[in-house]
Structure formats: structure tokens, C-alpha cells
């Protein structure tokens, strides 16, 4: 895979974060907003994993270390924790949207709000 430059995962993560902020800011449907937050989480997780990569490195699963560089293992642990936390956050957001729909009958962020000013 030498023809993919090493910066490519970072560009992909930046693209994911940018598109997710566009969705969160400009889309009115609450379900789409939740999808935007999920995509933001995916972008940040991709950034965390890809910053640990070392070119030509082996997977960090050996006790008797073979020769050569080894990919960093701590960002992978951070990413696992972050994935689990974001699952909980997404579940909570979806539950609240269900209740909002039951009470107000609308999934639009402007029509379903009661609190303003």
C-alpha cells in the first residue's frame, strides 16, 4: 500500500468531522442531527486510531517483541473507550427524540421546541 500517502487517514477524519458539523448545523430533522453526532464520533475515533500508526509497524499484541517498530497501542485503547461512551450517548439521544415525538408530534427542530428566549 505504498501509493496511499500517510496523511490520507487524517484527511478522511477531517472530512468526516467537517461533514458532520454541516449536518448538525444545517439539517432540521432531529434524527439527522443524531446521525451527525454519530458521524462526528466516527471522525474523532478515526483520528485517534490513525495517529498511532507507525509505518511498517507490527500489531501491538506480542509479548516477545519482534524486530522493528510497533504501532502505538494506547490510542487504540482510547478509541475503544470512546466508542463505548458514544454508544451510550446515542442511545440516550434516540430515547429523548422518541419522547419528543410522542409529546409534540413533530421531528423538526424548529417546530418541536417549546423553550425559547
Amino acid at each position: 500500500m505504498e501509493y496511499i500517502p500517510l496523511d490520507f487517514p487524517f484527511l478522511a477524519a477531517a472530512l468526516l468531522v467537517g461533514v458532520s458539523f454541516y449536518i448538525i448545523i444545517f439539517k432540521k430533522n432531529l434524527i439527522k442531527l443524531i446521525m451527525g453526532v454519530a458521524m462526528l464520533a466516527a471522525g474523532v475515533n478515526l483520528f485517534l486510531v490513525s495517529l498511532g500508526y507507525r509505518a511498517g509497524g507490527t500489531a501491538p499484541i506480542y509479548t516477545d517483541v519482534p524486530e522493528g517498530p510497533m504501532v502505538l497501542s494506547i490510542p487504540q485503547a482510547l478509541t475503544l473507550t470512546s466508542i463505548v461512551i458514544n454508544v451510550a450517548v446515542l442511545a440516550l439521544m434516540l430515547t429523548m427524540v422518541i419522547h419528543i415525538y410522542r409529546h409534540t408530534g413533530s421531528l423538526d427542530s424548529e417546530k418541536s421546541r417549546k423553550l425559547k428566549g
Partner: protein
Amino acid sequence: MDTLITHSSILIIAIPLVTAFLIPLVGMTSKKARNALVIVSLAFVAFLVFALAKDIAINGIHIYTLGATSPDLTTPTGFMVPVRIILEVDGMSILMGIIWSIVSLAAAIFSLSHIASETGQNRFYTLLLLMVTGGFGMMFTSDLFNLFVFLEIASISGAALIAFRTKFADTQEGGFKYIVVSAIASLMVLFAIGLLYAQYNLLNIGALAQVIQYTTPDKIALALLLIAFTMKAGMVPLHLWFPDAYSVAPASITGMLVITSHACMYAAFRVCFTLYGGMLDAPVVGWILIVFGLLSMFVGVTMAVFQKDVMRFMSYHAISQLGYMWVGVGVGLAVLGNPELVATYGRDAISGGVFHILNHAMYKPLLFFTGGALFHRTGTRDLTKMGGLAHKMKWTTILYIIGTLSIAGIPPLNGFSSKILIYESVYQFHPILTITGIIVSILTLASFTKAFHSAFMGAELPEYKEVKEVPRSMIIAMVILAAGIVFITLFPSLIVNWTIHPAADALIDQGAYITAVTGAVP
């Protein structure tokens, strides 16, 4: 007792966590046993926090390394950097810990009657104890990723508690806004942590502070961390979600959520003063905080005069008082590079800001609890429907008056002590800050008088003939906070010398924090 003190920092985080998971089991047998378990565990945690505070005042910074053979073995053998999670409690952290233990105990006692008619109370107390865990974790940890995890724990349980009463529509909307804002802020914090890790391969704040150079990704990480934490702490113009979320929650939870905002403000101070320390552009970051603090003070109070919903009105005042703390500490940060100015008025400005954190944490939950008492008896938060309640709710009226005089900075109460510290030190930096502070104080008093008249004064209304005083546990919770206010009123210098000056010195002096972790001179 000595082993209890040595392990106290991890016990303070672990006891609410374990109790949170025991609550559903105990709640299946009897409600009284569950209520007793909640109160006993929070009281024991408060005892541990005060014992740890006494130990820190005598012995200095307290370190605890998780997973090591001995608590102060920060760097494992064969490693060059600290890789384990380290809990480091210095003067500022233990001050936040004292505040959190008192307010969470008062909130738990208040909830005993306030949610007594709701279903699903086991889950309520589980979530409350999880929020207590999250708060203590944020205040005691010295590891950036651990800070992120506990920030998420506190946010998720806080959002679930805001949306607890599912029969109302506005609670769901408030909870949804809170969790979306928290998720975005936390993900940006994680992004910044990733940026810092990618450059230095370190997650510990003390170890990072030793090696950090202020490169361009570091500047972006500072902007992300600062703005994400200040959004969670309710700084204008990022405050728009704050009244929506905090006005619809059960009143005890709102009291605790305000302290969670303080903890996010504490995290912002840790980032600016300890993580970046002398390497950042202190005047630039200081002026950013000062300008946003001024905006917070003024926009917060002018929006608050306008409100008709009693809890929303108090949330806007929380935004305004948080602005005082930003201005005080921002002035201290702006003069951080100049030691003689720090000695002249910088340390006093930071002390004023930190003292205001302590005072605000005493009177703001008290005011939210009185708002919750009004909601409990009249069934509405709308001030246009209330009137003449002082005839029947005498204790609530007196405690509301104490809270009002305190928040408006009327002598002799504690609000005046911290405000005069801020005014006199900040005036030497630039006079406009003090003038704005005094105008905001006057408007605060005006708006609280307006709410006092419309809710408590006037003749008895016929629709509130059967209204009685609120139940005893709610009064006890409010009296605990009022006792704290009276204690700080009568002995301001005792409080300042024993808790506030150590906290301000811990923020200014980055070297002590680094030395405690790395064991070497920075």
C-alpha cells in the same frame, strides 16, 4: 485512619460508584433502606473529603497512582514517563471536592421528598450517585483522558436526570439539548487530547506540562479545549442551551448541575494554568476570558430581568455569576507572566474568582431549591400565576431572602466578601470591569426583588388556600446550604486563609503540580 487518608481519593470516587449499583438491589427490598443507603454513603464521602482536606493543608499535594504497588509510585520501574492513571489532589481540587460533597448531600436530602411521588426512584438515585462519581472524578484526576471519561459520565447521567420526568414535554427537549451540546463538547475535548498525544505521547497533565512547547497544533488544541469547557460552563455566547436544560430539571438535579458547570470551569483553569502554564500567550487568553466574562455578566442579568419562569430566571443569574468568576480569574491569567503584578493584584483577583466559586456554590443551589419548593407546592414554575405565598411558606421565604441578599452582594453576607475581593483587584487592571460588575449587581438585586414580589408578597390568593409549607427534608437540605452561607459570612478570613489562598497558589504555581507527578525539578 492513616490508610483511610492514603486511599481516600480513590475511595471518594469508588464509594458512590459501587453504591450506585447497589441501589436497585437494596431498593427491591425496602424504600427506607435505599434512602438511608444514599444518605449514609454521601455523608461518609463528605467525611472523607474533609479528612483529605485537612491532610492536604498539613502535608501538601496528595498523589494516588492507580494500579501500582504503592500509591506514590508514579513512574513504574523500567518506564521513563508516568503511564498509569494518577489522581492528584491539590488546593484547588479539594476546594471543588468540598463544594461537591456538601451540595450533593443537600441535593440527595432534597430529593427524598421532591420526587417521592414519581415512579422509577431506584433509577433516579442510581443516576444521582453516578453523577456524584463523575463530578469527583473530574475534580481529582490528573490524566487528560480520565478527565474526558468522567466528563462523559457526569454529562450522560445529568442528561438522563434532566429528562427524568417523561410526562412533561419540555423536560425531554431540555435533556436532548443538554446531551447534544455535551456530546459535541466532549468529542472536541477528545480531538484536542488526540492532538496533544500525537505530539508528545503523554496523557498526564503534570508530565505534559513539563515537555509542552507551544506549537501550532497545541494552539488549536488550546482553543478546542478552552471553548469546549467554557461552553459546558455556560459562557456567553455559548450559553443558549443553559437555561433550556437547567430550568426543566428536578430542582435538586439543577443544584447539582450548576456544580458540574463549576467543575467544567475548573477543568478550563487546569488547562490554562497547569497544562500550558507559562508557555501560552497569557495576555491574549486572559483577555479572551475577560471579554467573554463581561458579556456573560451583562447578557445574563439583562435576560434574567425579563423572564417569567422562576427556574429559567435563576439559570440566567447562574450565567451572570459565572461571568464574575471568568473575569476574576481571567485578570489573574492576563498578568501571569509578570510576577510583580501577580503579587500586587493578580493573586487577589484569582482568589476573588475562586472565592466566588465557593460562595456561588452555596447560594445558587439554595435558590434553585426554593424554586423547586415553589414548584412542589403550586405545581407551576410560571411566576405570573403565583402570589402571596409568604403567608403559608414562611421557611421558604426566609431562605429565599438569604439567597437573594447573598447573590446581590449585600453586606454582610458571603456574596459581598467575594465581590469586594474581585472589584478591588480587578479595578487596578481596568476600571470598566469593576463598573460593569457593580451595575450587574444592582440589576441582580432588582430582578430578585421582582421575583420576590410576584411569588411571595401580596395578599393570599384563593387558588393557593391549601398550600402548606414544603416537607421537612426539603427544609433540612436548604438549611444545610444556608448554614454554609452563614458560616462563610461570619468567618471570611478563616475560609480565605485555609481554602482560597491555597487554591489560588496551586493555580499560579505550576511547578508544585509537576514535581508531585514526576518527582524531579521541572
